[in-house]
Each structure stands twice: as C-alpha cells, then as structure tokens.
C-alpha cells in the first residue's frame, strides 16, 4: 500500500511540460502576418451548408492574401452564449445568426451588430431582398420588422404537412385542400384503424402544429399585432381558440400517437419515416433527413389548408460590430445573395429567396421541386405567419409546456390562459 511519491511527481512534471508545450505551439501559430477572416455558421448537412461552402471556396480564390478561418459552430452555443461571443475579443468577422427578437434583436439593441444599410445600398440588395423577406433582418429597439438592417436573410423555410403517398392511396384518401377535407381524411384513417398524425407532445412539433392552426385562421393584421404588438391580441379570440380546440378534439378522437404528450420530435419523425403514420406536420429542415430515411414509401407535401402558414425567411448572416473585415464580410454576403448561389440552393432542395425563376423551373430533383412548389403556393396565396415563439423572450418554453399540458388534459381554457398571461407579462 506504499505510494511512490517520486513516480507520481515525475508523471505530473511530464504532463505539465507536455501541456505547456502544446499551448506554446498553438500561440506560435497565431503570429502569421496574413490578413485573417473569421467566418462562422452552424448549418451542417443542409443545402445552405453546401452552397455556402462552395461560395467560400470561390471567395478564397478571389482573395489569396486572406487567411480564411471557418468554424462550424453549434446552434446551442450561439443561442446560449450569443451576445457574450459577439462582445468578446474572439467575435467573428461574419456569422450566421439566429433570427428573432431574443437573438438578433437583442444583439442589435446592445450595439453588437453592424448596420448593413450602407452595404445594401452599395450592392443594391434591395433588388433581391423584397420587403417581406428583408423585414427579418430589420430591428428597431430589438424588435423585428422595420428599421436598420442588421442581418441578411438568404433562404426561406416553412412548416407544412408531409404525407405518405402510399398510405393515402391504400386508404383512398385525396390530398386535402380545405380544413373540412383534412378533418375528413383524418377521420377516414382513424376509422380504418390507423392513427393519422405523428406528433411530438414534448417537443417543438406541438408548438408548430398549434401555431399552424392559429395561422390557418389568422389575417396578416393579426400576425402583425401578435408579432410586433401593433394592437392587443385576444388569446380567447377565434384564432387561438380554434387551434386549442382543434388539438383537443383531435386528441380526444385519438388522431395522435398514444401517450403523445411524452413523445419527442426525433421519435415522431422516425415514426413517420418508418411508415407507421400517414401525416407529419414538419418544417423544410426535415427535407434532407426525409430523403435519406423515408425510403420504403413515396412521400409528398401539402400546405396546411387555411389562410397563412408557419414559416419565414431563414437565419441571418450578420457582421458583428467587432468585425475587423467588414468589407470582406459584405462581399461574401453579396456572393451568397447572387443568382449563381441562389440557383445552386434551389438545385439542392433549399429555398432560395432570389433565384432565377426560369432556372428553378428546370430543377429536376423531386424534393427540391416539391419544396419550391409548395413554398411558391404558400407565398402566392397569402404569406407567412412567422413562428409563435418570436414575440417575447422565453415564450417557446411557455408554449411548449402549455401544449404538452393541453395534450394531457384537453383543457382549452387553461391553455389560453397560460399562453396569454405569459405573453401579456413579458411583452415590451
């Protein structure tokens, strides 16, 4: 049981020397005289990631004198430590940033982002950024919708129904175009012993389904009131009540998975991909995963019947106030917005905001075609209702908890009170 002190000390000494040596090496590498350009994003395995990578390759060729340091960040890090990163000495020169009041809005309010208005004028971005897209990058006092341009959206996203074509054919169900047809389709599946909707009650899927149903009843004015506080919103009004009541009715009718309030998103998506459920209400970010995994049947998409759909422009590209290479950063943003890379995005199944319509019409990839067709039908019809958690800080957690509760007790009034009270207590 004797302990060898000398041996232990030797181990400690060797380890310390090794550790110091590695830090010495890493600090030595920073002394390169080249101009450096630090760029971050957190897209991984999406059409955006591929397109941006290609743009970055071209960018590097155009600037051989610039040392480009790309880092793949995580969504969680930018969500949790975003402002701390932006105000630190390690802030990047250009980054993808989460849109919304709580993230890009709060960073703009803290003077951590560069106003891009001069660059927009220089590169004539107003031609590609139509007002309904540009507003996602504009913030006044931290609230999205108007004012200075702090971030540039370069793609779109939306939530719609994924459906299993094989199951629709087998049970003789047509693709619904009205809410009555949708309910009839659900009833038909249920009558045949097939619970129709793969839903996650403890994850974002319930939040999106609830807001999707709200949006189906809502006007653009209602969305402005809800998102930008133009007028007070009545949480016992027809929009909110319709959603809560429909979910509780569908739940009572057994249209969801058993014990739905305990199901997480990964499970629900997998249940659809396995072919167990004919319907899933999900966003365009699931496209690539669907293409890879839902291989045992044919699937399609249709927009949720009604007035508006859940969706928006995608996340932003921002230039932090501490960026040392603002001109280079703006040049890269301009590349991403160019027709060349917008077309590439369309080809890969992303949702470009400024692609050449003639080119998009020639895209043959089935998923890309589907995604773009449904998107243009949504845009053509009415527009996008954004996301429900944007108006106030911490609203996502409240909406999720209330949604989970609604699925376990079907109490519509309690749902309205919980979500309405939180909104009222936290709005500016």
């Amino acid at each position, binding site marked *: 049981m004797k*302990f060898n002190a000398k041996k232990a000390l030797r181990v400690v000494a060797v380890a310390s020397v090794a550790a110091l040596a590695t830090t010495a090496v890493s600090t030595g590498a920073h002394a390169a005289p080249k101009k450096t350009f630090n760029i971050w994003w957190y897209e991984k395995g999406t059409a955006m990631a591929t397109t941006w990578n290609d743009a970055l390759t071209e960018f590097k060729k155009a600037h051989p004198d610039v040392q480009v340091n790309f880092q793949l960040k995580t969504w969680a890090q930018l969500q949790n430590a975003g402002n701390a990163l932006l105000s*630190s000495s390690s802030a990047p020169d250009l980054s993808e940033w989460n849109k919304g009041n709580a993230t890009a809005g709060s960073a703009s309010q803290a003077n951590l982002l560069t106003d891009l208005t001069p660059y927009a004028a220089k590169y004539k971005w107003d031609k590609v950024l139509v007002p309904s897209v540009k507003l996602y990058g504009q913030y006044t006092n931290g609230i999205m919708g108007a004012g200075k341009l702090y971030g540039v959206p370069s793609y779109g996203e939306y939530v719609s129904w994924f459906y299993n074509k094989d199951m629709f054919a087998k049970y003789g169900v047509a693709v619904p175009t009205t809410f009555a047809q949708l309910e009839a389709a659900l009833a038909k599946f249920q009558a045949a012993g097939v619970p129709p909707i793969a839903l996650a009650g403890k994850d974002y899927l319930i939040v999106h389904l609830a807001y999707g149903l709200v949006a189906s009843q809502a006007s653009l004015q209602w969305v402005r009131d809800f998102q930008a506080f133009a007028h007070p919103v009545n949480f016992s009004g027809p929009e909110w009540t319709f959603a809560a009541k429909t979910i509780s009715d569908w739940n009572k009718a057994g249209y969801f998975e058993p014990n739905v309030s305990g199901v997480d998103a990964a499970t629900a998506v997998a249940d659809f991909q396995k072919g167990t459920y004919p319907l899933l209400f999900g966003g365009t970010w699931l496209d690539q995963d669907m293409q890879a995994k839902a291989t045992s049947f044919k699937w399609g998409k249709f927009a949720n019947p009604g007035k508006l759909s859940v969706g928006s422009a995608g996340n932003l590209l921002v230039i932090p106030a501490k960026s040392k290479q603002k001109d280079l950063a703006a040049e890269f943003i301009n590349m991403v917005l160019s027709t060349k890379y917008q077309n590439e995005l369309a080809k890969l199944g992303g949702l470009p905001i400024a692609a050449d319509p003639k080119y998009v019409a020639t895209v043959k990839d089935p998923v890309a075609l589907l995604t773009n067709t449904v998107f243009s039908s949504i845009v053509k019809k009415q527009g996008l209702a954004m996301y429900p958690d944007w108006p106030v800080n911490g609203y996502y957690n409240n909406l999720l908890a209330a949604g989970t509760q609604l699925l376990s007790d079907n109490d519509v009034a309690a749902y309205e009170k919980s979500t309405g009270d939180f909104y009222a207590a936290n709005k500016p």
Partner: protein
Amino acid sequence: MSNPVESAIGRKIWSPNRGKQNLKRRGVSSWLVFATVILISLVWLFPLWMALVNAIKTPLDFLHHGPLALPRHIFLKSIQAFWTDVNFPQKLLNSFIVSFFVALFGVAISFLSAFAIGIGRIRGRYFVLGLFMVAFTVPQESLVFPLYHLSQQVHLYNSVWVLVVIFSVIYSAFGTYMLSVVLGSFPTEILEAAKVDGASPRRILWNIVLPIVRPTMFALGTFFFVWVWNEYLIPLVLLADNANQTVSLSLGVTSGQYTSDPTTQAAAALLGIIPSVIFYLIFQRTLSRGVTLGAVK
C-alpha cells in the same frame, strides 16, 4: 475514533479485510447484497451499452429497429465522421489539460485550507466551512456572466486556462469541506506525539498528515477530474473558438435547432464516455483506497 466519510460509504461492506473474514460464513444476506450490486451495476451500464450499440448502427437500421435492437451489421462511419468533424484528438487534449490541472490544483488548495481548518483549528472555522458550503451550492448559471466579464478583464477569455482557474477554485470549496471533515477527526494522539518530538507545523503537514490522507486526496482528485470532464455551461460561454473547446461541448455538433442525428449522437456519447471510463479503470484502486482507508493506519 470513527470517520464520518468512511462510515457513510459503508466500510462494513466494502473493506477487503472484512470480506475475507466473512468469506466462510457468507449467508443469505450477503447474496442479497451481491445480487443488488449486480442489478445496480447493470442499470449503470445500460446507457453505455445504448451508446455502443447505436454508435455502430446505420441510420436506417436505427430508424426501423429502434434503439434497443442489436446492429444488423457493424457500421463505423458515424464514429469516423464525428471524430474528423470536430477534430476529436484536439478536444481530447483540451479536456485532459483542464481536467488534469483542476484535479491537481483543486486538491492542493483543498488540502492546504483543510489543514488550517481541520488540524490548525483556526478561529471561526465553522463559519468558514458554512461559507464554503454556500459557495458550492451556488448554481453555475448565476456565476457564468460575472465570470465572463472577469475573464475578459484578465485576458484569459477563450483559453483553457480560464477553466483551470475557475474550476480549481469552485471545486476546492467542496474539497476543503470534505477534507476538513476528514482531518477534523484526525487522531490527536499522533499530532501530540509529533509536537512532543518537536515537529514544526510544516513538518506535521508534509510528513505526518499528507501521507495518511493521500489516498483520500487521490479519490478527491479523481472526482474532480471526471466532474470537469463533464462541465458544459461555463466552457460553453467562455470558450469561443472551436480549437479551445472541450469534449463535452463537441457533442453539441450532433443536434441542430430542430434536427438531431441519433446515431451520430450515440457515437459522440461513446467517444465522450470512453476517456472517463479509462480514467476510472486506471485510478479505481486509488479511489477505493481513498474511501476505505481510515485515519489510523
């Protein structure tokens, strides 16, 4: 004199010598204990098993047969992809540096302050201990932004050494508390004998107390090592560059805002767990010594 730490751990069951004495008259109760221990260890091994079987499955296999089924065939792409995507060896080195130095400095600080409290019996020691108790119950969430601003001011932000400083201090609050309790029950006969022989406090510290509590300190160091290894929030905020990040942060790459990739997640979890398991296997002997050894040899 009984040692509270020791009796809390349950020396009666675990002491190797007692085990040998009881070998011949092992009754029903011993077997019951044995069965319970096996059962508990199976529960503890279950997550590790889940990480292993899912890390070596194809995504489609996972989709169609679920997480519990055995892999249809061995698929190592998830592990490879995660390894290269996050530059895992670099993360491993960062984590090792932080964990190792926190264990070293944390235990050293704990020992010195515990010596003052437990052996030196300084005035107001119960107040100091109470203060330390408060210090290690403060939630990290409330510390993280003050620490962020401090680290900016001392130019240690975005460096692994900032974690070494922070966690050495945070953990030494707990370490001091624990070692003070151990040293508080240190046999006074030995100390008095040393004083009679004319030993200075420094000599008592170095030649008498240190050798006896060394196994306990090793156990404490092992705990510190594994705790730092799993730290998430403070490293997340303080380490901006990927090149400085630790293993637990690199696991974040496997999930996006709405999407997650269960097989890569399992691969990441497996790679994240393995180093701690290896560390435990190497140090388990000092660990069990640390908790079974008494103050009196």
